[in-house]
């Protein structure tokens, strides 16, 4: 038996370097092959970032590198014009190595609604977006469900969806005839098939092969059956399989978390090929639980989704499109999938926005990365011309830094002095974050600058400047 494959943390730059062309050509934008190898094992570069190795004469090395660096959880892509890639995970815990491929969130559409309503819901899904520290967070896929059980009806619903959006699709039914109608309607868009079960695996396997689509193996609440299904589908020559161990609300929540964890542990720690596959979570399942009001269901769906995103879900299907249920998922996904080695702080010092003149406002903030990015994106979206002085607060937010004395009058005075802002503006007013308002008096004394207290949340900066800048003399 072959020796156990090295985990991503066990691969050294030398392992990678040995397989690179070793020409130090620099085409990858780092000076030499060793530096590139280091970037690769740190997850900062991919093998395909080395142009020469894509040449045919290096094919053998390339394949061996792909094998060496292949994640224990297979990455699977569905969709055509717009695609979604799921899985591709290397590790159990986030601090070991950056989580790859943020889980797409698919919203369901049922086939029992009329074409206009389908279009409207698709439009709503595709149009959902939220601006967050300079990024746009969006939803990623549509799950069409066969509620009627009617193949023709399903086919036409799928057709409606395909005509309205490029988003990747998941076709949901346990009836192979229904799925087949969906596959026919979808054209060559390569949807994900949900799902092969104990009863229908043979027919679903056939469809998956025939239409070259990835397929979900579904065995809610029965992890042994799930494993058997995977083995069986693999025996049919299918490699692109997504695992559905079942998502349960109510009394089944603990079991859901345990099975997601057991599967991911088996893959990342023991190199289990049967479970080295992406996991689908279906928080939509809470809608079939106890008969509750819509808001209670949304509430339950929201926290179930976030729990499972934290616990290894690689793809989620949700029903609620309410902003308050979806927004926390999008923001948590963004955070969870950032590089954990990314510094918590940004460099202190002066930042210039737009083209500030001598009468431009001067603002103060902390050097906690997320505070800075938030303030930065608020200043940009308000299109302000201004100076922002980033004070060294040990990477703490304004509130924590004020409480812990990391942000104090002396620090602010020093930062103002060192920035050289005095030479840039013809006034001596500085805008302090509202959460640091209590430092106003001391800061005026220590720095000689007049303090204008800003909003408690930087979203109010634009309004403050519009309404109160320049400051009235002799306040």
């Amino acid at each position, binding site marked *: 038996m072959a020796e156990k494959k090295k985990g991503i943390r066990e691969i050294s730059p030398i392992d990678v370097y040995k397989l690179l062309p070793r020409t130090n050509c620099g085409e990858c934008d780092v000076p030499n092959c060793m530096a590139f190898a280091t970037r690769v094992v740190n997850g900062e570069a991919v093998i395909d970032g080395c142009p020469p190795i894509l040449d045919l004469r290096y094919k053998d090395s390339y394949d061996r590198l792909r094998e060496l660096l292949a994640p224990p959880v297979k990455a699977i892509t569905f969709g055509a014009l717009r695609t979604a890639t799921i899985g591709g995970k290397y590790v159990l815990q*986030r*601090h070991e190595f950056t989580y790859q491929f943020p889980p797409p969130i698919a919203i369901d559409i049922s086939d029992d609604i009329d074409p206009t309503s389908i279009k409207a819901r698709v439009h709503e899904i595709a149009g959902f977006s939220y601006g967050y520290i300079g990024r746009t967070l969006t939803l990623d896929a549509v799950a069409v469900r066969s509620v009627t059980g009617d193949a023709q009806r399903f086919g036409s619903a799928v057709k409606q969806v395909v005509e309205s959006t490029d988003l990747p699709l998941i076709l*949901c039914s346990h009836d*192979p005839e229904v799925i087949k109608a969906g596959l026919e309607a979808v054209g060559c868009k390569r949807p994900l098939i949900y799902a092969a079960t104990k009863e229908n695996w043979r027919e679903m396997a056939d469809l998956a092969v025939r239409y070259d689509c990835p397929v979900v193996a579904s065995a809610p609440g029965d992890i042994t059956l799930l494993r058997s299904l995977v083995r069986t589908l693999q025996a049919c020559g299918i490699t692109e399989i997504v695992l559905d161990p079942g998502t349960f609300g109510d009394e089944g929540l603990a079991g859901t978390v345990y099975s997601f964890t057991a599967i991911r542990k*088996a893959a990342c720690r023991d190199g289990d090929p049967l479970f080295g596959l992406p996991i689908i979570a279906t928080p939509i399942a809470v809608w079939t639980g*106890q008969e509750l009001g819509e808001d209670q269901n949304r509430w339950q769906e929201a926290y179930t989704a976030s729990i499972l995103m934290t616990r290894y879900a690689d793809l989620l299907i949700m029903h609620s499109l309410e902003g308050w249920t979806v927004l926390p998922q999008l923001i948590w996904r963004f955070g969870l999938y950032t590089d954990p080695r990314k510094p918590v702080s940004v460099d202190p010092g002066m930042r210039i926005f737009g083209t500030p003149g001598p009468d431009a406002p001067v603002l103060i903030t902390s050097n906690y990365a997320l505070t800075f990015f938030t303030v930065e994106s608020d200043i940009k979206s308000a299109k302000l011309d201004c100076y922002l002085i980033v004070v060294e607060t040990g990477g703490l937010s304004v509130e924590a830094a004020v*409480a812990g004395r990391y942000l104090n009058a002396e620090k602010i005075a020093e930062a103002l002095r060192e920035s050289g802002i005095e030479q840039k503006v013809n006034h001596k007013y500085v805008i302090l974050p509202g959460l640091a308002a209590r430092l106003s008096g001391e800061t005026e004394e220590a720095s000689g600058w007049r303090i204008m207290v800003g909003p408690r949340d930087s979203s109010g900066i634009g309004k403050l400047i519009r309404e109160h800048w320049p400051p009235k003399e002799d306040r």
Partner: protein
Amino acid sequence: MTDKPDLSGLLRLLGPGIAELLAGREIILENVQLDLAELQLTIPVGGSPVILPGYPVTGSQPSPANASGMASGIDRSRWPAELLEEPFTPVTDTYPARIREVTLGATKGEGGSRGRNITVGGARAPPFTDPCVHHVHPPVIAMDVFDTPFPMPRALKSHLTEVIDDPAAWARMNVEKYGADMVTVHLLSTDPLIKDASPKEAAKTVEDVLQAVDVPIIIGGCGDPKKDAETFIEIAEMADGERLLLNSVTADMADAKTLEPVAKAADKHGHCILAFTGLDLNSAKELNRRLYQFFPADRILNDLTTVALGYGLEYSFTIHERARIAGLMGDAELQHPTISAATNAWSAREAWMDLGPRFGSPDFRGPIWETIGSLTLLLAGVDLFLMMHPLAVSTMRDVSSRLITEGTAKAAEASWVNARI
């Protein structure tokens, strides 16, 4: 459907007092329909899907993608005739060490006046990773009380109007109405930059709270290393034997030379200490080491910093996961139970700001923000949560109780697939 919805399930889910909250009697709900008489019922469409054993494989049309005759290329003769059985034996991880147990609050028999004490910690594995590893002590929820009003989002303030100026009444409401396991009294008034209330005044507030409720109490300072020391020492003496949790001591106190007197007073009067550090395990270990010189390790809790969802929750999540694993692997300086100031969720603008109709009312968005932040850190191993919104509190209690007692999920096909919802 004309059947009335079964409210017992809803109440179990949301806890007493919450259905009322949700029904809009106590908070204003915008863009939300919650008339209980008009609840939309979920009607799962039953029955198993139609399975066609004789599904004609050869008669299918190849898809456009495979029009070149892929279908005929499938070699089904090698396909298994039956499902291939494949067992699964999950591996139970064992860890060489465990998290310390710390008991908060002392009953009359133990030298205090609490109705019961509460023990946190004791974990032998990361939480909810293995059904065979029993969760030793359930997660504990302490609800906040502030002795001085400060700007608060409407969704938080709305249920506090009656008690906002009376810490004792506020504490009583937290315990009696919302079932808080513990109460935190934040003595903001002592802040030299706010009211600079004297340690004696602060001790009086704490005394009132101790009389109003009989749950274990957490004492929150103002963050000033000198003033907090004076306040904590005064209160430690006043509440001799109550096993309070002093929230918190910091590296700043060590710099200000107030750490030792606070620790010694806490030790002498039988209290516990919360050591606070900002998202850095080395600082956390260092502060713990300093404390060990004057204070018993089995009465120390750690606050590694809770950042709001959207403002860096992932940093808090990861640092708690790392700390817990390191502690279980044997790092004695990280074997302290941890707390999360989950109320910090509300510092995120997404929790309270009006973002337009598309993003719903902050009356839901705020509490779900606090809920998701707490649940995320529950998964990372946090033992004690300082919380504020009743809806977040009841959800935390409900979810954590379901997570620690593994319920039964009946194996079945996924019924959401064809449900009318």
